[in-house]
């Protein structure tokens, strides 16, 4: 610590260079944090996918529904505990206005809720939901977002043609569910669920089932049972594609391409550039101070200590850049949902926020970049001879 004032004074000597290096580093860490947060948000609810749940959809595309009759046949397979029909409703509060969007599903509640203990709902609210055809349950975050309380009513209109009936669907909030993220990490509390029968009847009993969620007794049998389900409908008009819930959700993420690879690639490229910029700064700073390094060594500073001082200076630059970058990232991530265009895209993410883990990773990366940038100049200072450095003055 007694060398800290010495390090700070050196950084202040060329404050424009120091400030621009810190700024460059902070932009790098800001991008790293923002991109990592985005990847985490996209893949967040993969964590809550259960290996005991299988999802069957139309083999051609999710756009096509499956016949209702499939449920009984799937349920009859050995090893199957339960089957629930679910349909992605795609409802918005105002037609085609996605500013207030939140995920909403029609589900066969009696079968679906027992498969999902992560949705924690008081018993009286569960009963009220089951008894009300127009009833729905909403996650805590969505309820808080719109100020909804038990008994409140609201309307949604779907953008999916078969679910458009010329007027909005009306719902009554019968329950607000929470979760325990320690036990059920990745659980989405922005979602809303309502009775599948309500959708079925309101659309004139013309719709099919978007996906069947199947609970199996033994997760190690997931592949065999998936094959068995698909085998049941091999010769039908509506063949199925069955996979684990994790694979099903990962398929959605991959629709946007290999997002993680792309974003990580961008972050890595930026980091490498900043490494070169910071290394250049440190090299210049060290070259300018050859005489001072010689003087320090003459005064009795060991080569290791001189190397340590340069590395500490470099790491300090990294730490400052990291701290500013994390701050910028935190502000930007908070502001993202309110931005035009991009806000619409990210508002639906259930867990958009700079996590402590990503912030720590960002800070660690900044420190590492700082140390790497200072490595070569510090080694040169370590190896340099006093007499050579004094002679070059």
């Amino acid at each position, binding site marked *: 610590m007694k060398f800290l004032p010495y390090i700070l004074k050196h950084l202040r000597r060329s404050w424009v260079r120091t400030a621009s290096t810190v700024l460059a580093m902070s932009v790098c860490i800001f991008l790293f944090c923002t991109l990592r947060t985005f990847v985490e948000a996209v893949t967040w609810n993969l964590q809550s996918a259960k290996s005991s749940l299988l999802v069957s959809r139309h083999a051609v595309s999710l756009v096509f529904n499956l016949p209702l009759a499939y449920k009984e046949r799937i349920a009859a397979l050995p090893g199957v505990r339960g089957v629930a029909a679910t349909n992605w409703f795609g409802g918005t509060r105002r037609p085609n206005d996605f500013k207030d969007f939140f995920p909403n599903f029609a589900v066969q509640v009696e079968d679906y809720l027992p498969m999902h203990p992560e949705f924690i709902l008081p018993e009286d609210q569960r009963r009220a939901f089951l008894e009300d055809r127009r009833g729905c349950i909403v996650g805590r975050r969505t309820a808080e977002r719109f100020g909804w309380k038990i008994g409140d009513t609201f309307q949604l209109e779907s953008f999916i043609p078969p679910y458009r009936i010329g007027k909005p669907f009306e719902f009554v909030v019968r329950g607000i569910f929470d979760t325990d993220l320690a036990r059920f990490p990745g659980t989405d509390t922005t979602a809303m669920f309502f009775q599948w029968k309500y959708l079925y009847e309101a659309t004139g009993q013309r719709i099919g089932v978007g996906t069947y969620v199947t609970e199996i007794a033994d997760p190690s049998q997931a592949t065999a049972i998936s094959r068995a389900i698909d085998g049941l409908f091999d010769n039908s008009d509506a063949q199925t594609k069955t996979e684990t819930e994790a694979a099903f959700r990962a398929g959605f993420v991959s629709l946007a391409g290999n997002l993680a690879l792309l974003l990580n690639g961008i972050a890595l490229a930026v980091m490498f550039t900043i490494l070169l910029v910071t290394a250049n700064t440190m090299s210049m700073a060290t070259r300018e101070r050859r*005489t001072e390094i010689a003087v320090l060594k003459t005064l009795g500073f060991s080569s*290791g200590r001189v190397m340590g001082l340069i590395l500490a200076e470099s790491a300090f630059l990294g730490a400052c850049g990291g701290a500013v970058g994390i701050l910028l990232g935190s502000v930007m991530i908070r502001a993202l949902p309110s931005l035009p265009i991009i806000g619409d895209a990210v508002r639906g993410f259930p867990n958009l926020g700079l996590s402590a883990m990503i912030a720590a990773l960002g800070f660690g990366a900044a420190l590492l970049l700082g140390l790497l940038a200072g490595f070569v100049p510090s080694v040169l200072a370590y190896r340099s001879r*006093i*007499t050579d450095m004094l002679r070059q003055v």
Partner: protein
Amino acid sequence: MAMVELQQVRRVYRRDTQEITVLDGIDLSVPEGEFVALMGPSGSGKTTLLNLIAGIDRPTSGSVRVAGTDVAQLSESALARWRSRSIGFIFQFYNLIPVLTAVENVELPLLLTRLSRKDRRERAVTALKVVKLADRASHYPRQLSGGQEQRVAIARAIVADPKVLVADEPTGDLDARSAEEILALMETLNREFHKTIVMVTHDPRASQRAHTQKHLDKGVLREGA
């Protein structure tokens, strides 16, 4: 007892395949409390000899004993520790750290000790008082004259209370009046603080202040009056 004892010291530099003998069989003995001036033309090996005594260079052969330590036998880190305790170095161009104030420059060698921040500062101020610059403690080198900068450099050299002071042309970059002040200060350090001083100089007036003068010529030491 000799404070500085050199026996058959040779220093040879290699430039590609060529060998250049800078010092050739130097024998030198400087008693404790002595003030020695090393003189000689450019390229005669004065600074090289001074660097060997200060432990910032190593001889090719021969032995260099300073303050009872065989300098050539120490490892790099042990040599650095030894320098911090035993040697005060005064450069021709002062070589103060420009971003540090006078008192911070003087305090620099004490960062290597276990002294508290308060004690370090007290000692640095005391050293500045010795060189009569306590009132300029908070000034940066750019705010001082050449003579004042050299006095700060001398304060830095003596702050850790080393046994030996080595000075490489300490008046070489100063006007006559400032040079006189510096030489008077060095005399005081030798006389009142009993520092052994080895000074390289071109200036005959400066050498007159020393007790003895030694002349180097083409790497060979000759006694001089």
